[in-house]
């Protein structure tokens, strides 16, 4: 029963990771940018939501809806003002740019909001910790379920948007080959900016959920980034449903690892991440015609 509980908790945790990861995945899938400031954008969104709640007394859910377009605008401005320029110089500069952006964001948030720890949990009352007893020792938190449902809706919505709408097709085409997309009349620059806006808008949801389930301060971003990054890699970069699968695999691996030993939590997550990464590299090399023996270095 304990093991079943661990799996259930792991799956629910995976939903949270998926929300955290989907903006990162989108950003990489479309623009080929590993956004190292993703975690800090999540924290920034959480601060904006907190500010709205604090100033107006609005519910955190309403504040999240208001923050979505704000973050989208920030994403658009980042792409136009910063990332687009740095992309012209190759792969490395955008990584450095987002790294620098992360540091600027952290310290700017310290200046603006102070070092205090914040959470939105007090504002949602009992929902933060209310739970349902399912059977026996299995309890699920109402908030965990809410987060999981939000993850499925967000990723499902994105999936439908990218697959079924004309604009989604434009984004996919531009991601595939921006030059060819331009030949058939797509404005690649505008499409990239829209994709960045969309990816950054998801940080509003991620920030809200983080602030409800945990607590944060201006330096909480990098930790969020690690789990998001692992979920993206496990699930397959740029794949929408893959992000959910990746999040769940990561969450279940972690909670099962913790059942073996308390230190197994992070270890199991990192181990699965490395195993998947190594497996992918191996498969890629075999597919590219190097053959299993050469890949493993057995032929020499």
């Amino acid at each position, binding site marked *: 029963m304990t093991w079943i509980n661990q799996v259930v908790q792991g799956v629910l945790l995976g939903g949270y990771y998926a929300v955290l990861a989907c903006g990162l995945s989108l950003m990489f899938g479309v623009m080929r940018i590993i956004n190292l400031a993703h975690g800090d954008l999540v924290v920034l969104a959480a601060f904006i939501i907190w500010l709205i709640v604090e100033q107006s007394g609005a519910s955190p859910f309403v504040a999240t809806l208001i923050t979505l377009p704000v973050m989208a605008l920030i994403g658009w401005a980042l792409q136009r003002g910063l990332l687009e320029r740095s992309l012209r110089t190759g792969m490395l500069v955008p990584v450095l740019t987002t790294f620098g952006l992360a540091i600027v964001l952290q310290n700017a948030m*310290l200046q603006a909001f102070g070092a205090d720890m914040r*959470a939105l949990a007090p504002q949602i009352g009992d929902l933060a910790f209310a*739970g349902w007893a399912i059977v026996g020792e299995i309890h699920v938190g109402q908030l965990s379920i809410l987060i999981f449902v939000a993850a499925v809706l967000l990723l499902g919505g994105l999936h439908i948007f990218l697959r079924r709408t004309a604009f989604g097709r434009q984004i996919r085409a531009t991601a595939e080959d921006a030059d060819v997309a331009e030949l058939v009349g797509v404005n690649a620059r505008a499409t990239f900016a829209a994709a960045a806006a969309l990816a950054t808008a998801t940080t509003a949801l991620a920030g809200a959920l983080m602030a409800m389930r945990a607590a944060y301060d201006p330096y909480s971003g990098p930790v969020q980034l690690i789990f998001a990054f692992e979920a993206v890699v496990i699930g397959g970069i740029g794949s929408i449903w893959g992000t959910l699968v990746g999040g769940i695999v990561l969450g279940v691996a972690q909670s099962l690892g913790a059942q073996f030993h308390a230190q197994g939590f992070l270890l199991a997550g990192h181990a699965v991440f490395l195993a998947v990464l190594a497996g992918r590299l191996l498969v890629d090399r075999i597919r590219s015609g190097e053959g299993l023996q050469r890949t493993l270095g057995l032929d020499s």
Partner: protein
Amino acid sequence: MKGRLLRTEGRSSKIAGLSRRQFVRLAGIGAGGLALGHGMSRALAQTAVIKVGYIAPQTGALASFGEPNPFVLNLIRKTLEGGVSIGGTKYQVQILDRDTQSDPVRAGQLARTLINSDQVDFVLTTSTPETVNPVADTCEAAGVPCLSTGMPWEPWYFGRGAKPGEPSPFKWTYHFGFGTENFSKAYLSQWSGPVATNKKVAFLMPNDADGNALRVIFKPILEKAGYNVIDPGPYENGTTDYSAQITQFKAQQCEIFTTGPIPPDFAVFWRQAAQQGYTRMVKIAQIAKTGLFPSQVEALGSLGPKLATVAFWHPTFPYKSSLTGLSSQQLAAEYEKATGKQWNQMLGTNVALFDAGIAALKSSSDPRNKQALVKALSSLQVTTPVGNLAWGKGPVPNVVPMIFVGAQWVKAAPGSKFGIDLVVTDNADDPNVPVGSKLAAYNG
């Protein structure tokens, strides 16, 4: 190694009647004089200046520890505005404050720069081993007096290479901070108070310096005192799901819960414990490390009040700052008035550091002589908000243990500016501290 060389040279190898250090200083003054002849003559005309370095985290992960510092520095600078007279000479005290950005490597570098470039006479440092230890090590090596606080004394003393039962290896560094003994006394007294339990203790400690120290030192003390300690083992900081530990605590029906996590992790743990129904069986929830600052408890919403903790300073402490003349109560009130923020324990502690530091300067025969200053530190007696500190009485040389009282976070009284309040619930470590109210059960 470099520091030791410098020191022996300073003592023995005199060049033309000057020690090496005096020679270097003279050479420096000479060069400075050449460069700004005009400015130099003006500086000489002024009163003598004592330079005091102050190293603390102001930004980064430890930024909350530094929150009272702008207020404290302002208060101290104002107090020292007219200068201090020591042994008939008037001195200006110049405080050079530096931010470690929560980085231990940078803390050491800052200390080196203060010593080598700014030529400080004295270094004060506070808040966590990551700040204090590298600074103290640098000062010890360079032979510059250093006074510190804001961390437990054992990791300061033994963590920097001292051995139990042997004479202290430290000549230049002094410290005041609570120790395991104060910690155990406060905990055990708090747990044998008005709240009855089944003496089963859920022991959730991370795999970091503090967590492991508590596991090694504190767990056996609990077991000896008759508690049944359930320890699921060290977990890594940054863990986002604790169902494995919670299941174990629930199965064992642990009515006492104790922990020393980083604050964001505790928020996740405690909410999940509530989701899984564990918090409802807890009678005493005793937290350390997290819950030092009000915002960390407020972030827990309705799960925050009635968490028990321990305090090394509280506005009801019957001690005052000898330098500023403010009582603990006045200090907290001034801080809340000036900043609009609720008082926290680092406020009293950091003011105490300046109380002790300036008192040491005053009681030394010559404050700019480093030997005379450490001599003054070794037998210093001073009244500070955190208590009357007196060096030279043990537990080890260089260290004065701070008082540690049991406390509990409660909902603030109606009409208060703040949501929650800390009350003293147990004074086993110092009966002079008034008990504000009895410990209340977490559920009840």
